[in-house]
């Protein structure tokens, strides 16, 4: 059996006494599209921030492609890409200028050629010479995805990638994620709120509630057991009984 692409061991985070993530332990295999579900404040973004080495864990650790996030963050950064929930770029620069800068920081050889290649791949070559300041949320999301895959990472982290997008934008992004996974073999780690997206995109899911992992399984097992989206939603709500979602429901 091969080593998992992402291996998380008792990963914890604390903010001034508040436990944001409580000893999260799980692993994600190479080539998976992993959906990380949870209510607002469950600890999903905190988890991504630690896995992408943007924040140090209070305790525990994790490894990405065999590299420890605490002991060897530079190696981790070489094999990951990250699209934050709200993609923000240098507004006064064009999309291509932004991407060339990030490509150079990632050590991409021939950054201009690579940027043109990625913009073509994402069907947004027409945005290349346009200043980012005037971009819509959907355009930003695509350029955000472009900056994340410039260096051909093994793992792509997406934080609420469909948040604020219209149905067309959601479909386009879903298709792109699928292509990155199937054509380039990228392992995808995706935080999301949209249960309907899970069955269409993910190969495995986990549910986080108040910083604790309450469910983790492959999507086939989930759909075999719970059937359609509505049943999946029931599962999600039942797993967060003390959460805000349950209160709203």
């Amino acid at each position, binding site marked *: 059996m091969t080593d998992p692409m992402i291996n998380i061991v008792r990963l914890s985070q604390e903010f001034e006494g508040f436990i944001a993530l409580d000893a999260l332990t799980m692993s994600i295999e190479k080539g998976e599209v992993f959906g990380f579900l949870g209510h607002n404040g469950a600890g999903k973004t905190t988890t991504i*921030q630690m896995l*992408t*080495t943007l924040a140090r864990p209070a305790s525990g650790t994790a490894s990405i492609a065999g590299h420890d996030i605490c002991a060897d963050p530079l190696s981790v*950064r070489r094999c990951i*890409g990250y699209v934050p929930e709200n993609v923000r770029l240098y*507004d*006064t620069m064009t999309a291509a200028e932004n991407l060339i800068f990030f490509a150079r*920081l990632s*050590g991409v*050889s021939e950054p201009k050629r690579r940027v043109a290649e990625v913009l073509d791949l994402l069907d947004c070559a027409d945005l290349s010479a346009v200043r980012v300041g005037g971009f819509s949320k959907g355009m930003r999301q695509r350029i955000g995805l472009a900056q994340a895959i410039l260096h051909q990472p093994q793992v792509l982290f997406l934080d609420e990638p469909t948040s604020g997008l219209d149905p067309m934008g959601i479909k386009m992004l879903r298709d792109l994620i699928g292509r990155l996974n199937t054509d380039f073999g990228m392992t995808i780690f995706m935080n999301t709120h949209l249960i309907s997206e899970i069955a269409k995109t993910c190969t495995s899911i986990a549910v986080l509630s108040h910083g604790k992992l309450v469910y983790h399984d492959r999507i086939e097992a989930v759909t075999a057991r719970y059937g359609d989206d509505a049943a999946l939603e029931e599962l999600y709500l039942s797993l967060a009984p003390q959460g805000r979602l349950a209160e709203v429901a």
Partner: protein
Amino acid sequence: MSELSPNWLIARQSARFVLRERTVALLATLFVTLVLISAWLGWSATSTVDRIYVDAAAFLKASGQPVPTNPVLEISPLSLMRNMSVYVALIGALSAIVIGNRLVSIDRKAGVLPLIGIRPLGRSAYADGKIAALLGVVLGLIAIAGVMAVATFLVLPSVTLSGGQWLQLAGFLGVSALYMTCFGLVGLAFAARAKSETVALLVPVTLWLTLTFILPQLTANLNPTAAINPISALATPPDTSFFHWAGWLLGPLSLADAYKFASANLLDYLPQGMASPSFIPPVANIVLLTAAAACTAWRALSRIEMTQGDYDA
């Protein structure tokens, strides 16, 4: 084209951005204009005195009276640049604070820190890049000032600098660059660590006001308006135990005092027997405080919060 290291990429990108900023451009233009005015005033005053002397010398010679030496030659030509030390202490230091602040706040306000933070570069590379950008911009400003100073000395009649004086001028420009860099580093440090954008700018400006106007009052009994005058600022402090102890304790922190004394010494207008209130020689004092500011800025930058970055509203 050979690929630049991440440090230089950060430095180049930041310097380009900061030079496009209107506030920075305005302050830099103001600084350069004031240096130009300073050079013009020195040139104008000296050439006027020289012309009057030539006319007077011709008249005295014709009437058979003894001709005194040219007064222009009795003072060191370097002292013509003394107004520049005032502009460096005031507008130069303030510009450096704004430059330092903007070098970091452009990234924080753009919200790109998470995208930089996940690149394969150490946090130290980010810190090195920002400090290199600050040095580049400050040295650029000082280089413009230096070109103006050199041009002034080359076109002035009756004024020639010896090899040693050219070195002193270079030393003055170097000390001025260090002085501005010190404030720029403070700007960098607070821009990296402060939660609010206002605090990030206000604290370094308050520090600058304290060092320029308040500490000289405590160490040498200088009132604030005197502190901006390079001549009166060199007054001897009263011989009392308060000023003795204040000078001993606060003198090493009094950066503006150290700069004024170092400038006066390098530009040959320091009255004989006068010494700075600090027990540390002025140039060494500036070097030490700049090194301390560099360590603080580097530490703040290498620990910058990369998860979101933007200032609190």
